[in-house]
């Protein structure tokens, strides 16, 4: 069964939709455990440092220790989330981040409020109140998040897609020399098949050698069944090269059919790019 993750869906005023994965109670509890350990360490170091004031007065030393422990305990989350844009060391380790419920930038008042509400969320022990609220909330919000209109998301690091995976460094496509067969291939290939071929090419390095041969053999078979290209062209092609050629034939020409004004319509609608010399 596929695991279902809660997501924060946001629609921008421009009508663009995107979603961010929400962090669940388990990962947040782990992050909190790390932060609690960090607070303990910080207090330990602070206590050692403040012991020096004992030379002046033992009473003053203890007063400073009591006040500074309290300040660290209350201020730790506020300070880190403000300076690290919604992250604390624990959240950073677990790849979590506090975000405004609408996907906007966090305000200081939100950060302070969600952290002050810990006095209630942490009751009676080990964040039981906060944990229960989180489980009942469809956005995994503890009471502090509900009051401050915040959510905690899982940060994902996804590498930008690499278009070079598709041409494999070779530009020549013998299928394009036979326009009538290329046209027939375009007619036959469904968008779904083209999509599968594209994604397989994009992720070919993630496949084991055996699986790679097998998948490309099946895909090439599907393309071969649709249109028979002359053997003198296809004989020297591997299955992978065959799929790549077929996909390029389908996508490139589909693209040519579109009126020029429709290409990358979204980007054109924006108009002249400020400071856009580098890429023009």
């Amino acid at each position: 069964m596929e695991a279902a993750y809660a997501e924060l869906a946001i629609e921008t005023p421009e009508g663009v939709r995107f979603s961010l994965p929400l962090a669940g109670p388990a990962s947040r509890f782990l992050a909190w455990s790390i932060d609690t350990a960090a607070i303990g360490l910080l207090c330990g170091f602070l206590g050692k440092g403040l012991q020096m004031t004992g030379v002046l007065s033992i009473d003053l030393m203890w007063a400073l220790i009591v006040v500074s422990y309290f300040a660290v305990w209350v201020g730790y989350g506020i300070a880190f989330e403000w300076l690290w844009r919604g992250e604390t060391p624990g959240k950073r380790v677990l790849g979590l981040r506090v975000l405004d419920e609408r996907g906007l930038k966090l305000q200081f008042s939100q950060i302070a409020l969600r952290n002050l509400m810990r006095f209630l969320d942490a009751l009676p022990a080990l964040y039981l109140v906060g944990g229960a609220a989180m489980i009942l909330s469809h956005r995994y919000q503890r009471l502090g998040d509900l009051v401050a209109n915040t959510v905690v998301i899982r940060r994902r690091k996804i590498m930008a897609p690499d278009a070079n995976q598709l041409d494999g460094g070779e530009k020549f496509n013998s299928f394009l020399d036979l326009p009538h067969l290329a046209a027939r291939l375009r007619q036959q290939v469904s968008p779904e098949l083209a999509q599968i071929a594209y994604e397989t090419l994009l992720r070919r390095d993630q496949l084991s050698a055996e699986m790679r041969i097998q998948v490309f053999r099946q895909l090439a078979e599907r393309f071969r069944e649709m249109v028979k290209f002359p053997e003198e062209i296809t004989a020297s092609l591997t299955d992978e090269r065959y799929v790549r050629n077929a996909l390029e034939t389908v996508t490139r020409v589909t693209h040519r059919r579109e009126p020029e004004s429709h290409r990358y319509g979204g980007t054109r609608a924006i108009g002249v790019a400020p400071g856009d010399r580098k890429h023009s």
Partner: protein
Amino acid sequence: MILDLPRFLATERAYWDELEAVLNKIENDPLRRLPLAEITRLQYLYQRSASALARLSTFSAEPETREYLELLVARAYAECHPKRVRSERLRPRHWLLHTFPQTFRRHTQAFGFAVGLTIAGAIFGWTALTFDYSAKSVLMPFPGLMQPPAQRVKQDEKARGARLAGHKSTFAAELMTHNIQIALLTFAMGATCGVGSVVLLFYNGVTVGAVAADYVHGGFTQFLLGWLLPHGVIEIPAILIAGQAGFVLAAALIGRRRRERLRELSSDLLTLAGGAALLLVWAGIVEAFFSQYDYPVLPYDLKIAFGLVELVALTFYLYRAGRT
């Protein structure tokens, strides 16, 4: 229709890289103010990437590229759509002389409710102790309050303020941190639709009422006023202000437009909670360094007068300061 993804990626990738670099720069140095040219460029890159995302969502089901772009657009969205909020620059003097008292006055109804609850609790505590003295341990289960008033008065007057000698600073720090925790909990309890704040304020009132009854019935009214007024006239209002913040929060949670109301009120809530904490710092100092001295070191009348002056000053501050 199939989008020419290879070409699409080749064209757009450079913009995404540039946007990612700009966002990394902003996120690594959040306090940096962007020059206008960079803001304009960021806005353009955001719009271009958002448009690419919209196009990709329409024409292609390629999940990884879309996911990458979604994250990029989400990050840029947060930077390009700042909320219209009042300046959050820290101005302590202005906050103290204007913001806090003004915020207090904006929510006097909630403060009145907190006062009413505490008075009701005090009447209950007074009455309960008057008619059932055996309930003392239930009404005020604190070791310091359990001894008979006569014994406490005798002990304190004999000690001449030396009881806490060498520990006054530590005692003040403990009082401050403990009372601030209570105040913040009273505020946070507002998230239980106010029920928790009601219980805490009422119980606080019960304790005050029971203690008062205990000492007044024992004939130690002057001692009681001299002991409680110097710090109590600040400490009790601070807890009431925390309760006020809790009720403002509860009203926002219960009422309509919950999210919008909370957004509008977040600064007020923080101001009230912060103000209560600040008052408790003063109360802690007074309790440790002043309230603990009794007759003959400090005459009770002086202590009572000091408390009354504080009360008048606090009332004047909360109701008059920051008026335009």
